[in-house]
């Protein structure tokens, strides 16, 4: 199982802060991009929201490029560009 968190505008548009993804839905040697692809299958609106070019990705609470390898038990997060400070 991989846990995926959503924040801010993305959380609001997907109408959930979190999604669990069974590893069986992922290809062999999955990456953050594989997770994103799997989530895009959920619905048309998820496909649209999760296709935004500016989304950032964190794997285990570290900002990561989409080609980062993931494994069961990892915590992933997708979110819009940050606007703190």
């Amino acid at each position: 199982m991989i846990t995926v968190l959503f924040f801010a505008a993305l959380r609001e548009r997907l109408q959930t802060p979190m999604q669990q993804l069974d590893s069986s839905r992922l290809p062999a040697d999955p990456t953050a991009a594989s997770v994103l692809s799997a989530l895009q299958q959920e619905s048309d609106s998820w496909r649209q929201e999760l296709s935004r070019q500016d989304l950032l990705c964190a794997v285990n609470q570290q900002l990561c490029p989409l080609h980062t390898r993931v494994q069961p038990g990892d915590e992933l997060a997708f979110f819009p560009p940050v606007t703190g400070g």
Partner: protein
Amino acid sequence: MSISVQVQTADFSVADEYQQLSRHSHCGAVVTFCGLVRELSNGNLHSMTLEHYPGMTEQALQAIAEQAQQRWQLGAVRIIHRIGTLTPNEQIVFVGVASAHRAAAFAAAQFVMDYLKNRAPFWKKEHSNHGEHWVQAKATDQQALQRWE
């Protein structure tokens, strides 16, 4: 070298933070930055809500402070970022750096703010007469990173 980062809903006291920073006896320079909620140009901002990614936020701030420490000789780096609901003129973020020399203190404080703006998982939502909307990231904030590369 002391690093201290904090994410909190409570306000902070710049006076107290400055006191701590200025106690480092070999540090002749203390630079502080404080970011405040600005009124919108139309004056209609009621409040702002700051969301964050608990756990990741603290790590991200700690990592930024450590990077600053690796680049410059610093006595202390302090970062405080608030979350929750804030009204105009309230304090949002504090960055304080103590160093032997002013050039290092200024550079490190700016470096921390520039990275915080681009790498720390905070998001602002503004509540005004026109409803609520998520603040958009600014290209200038991303460009600000270039000088550190």
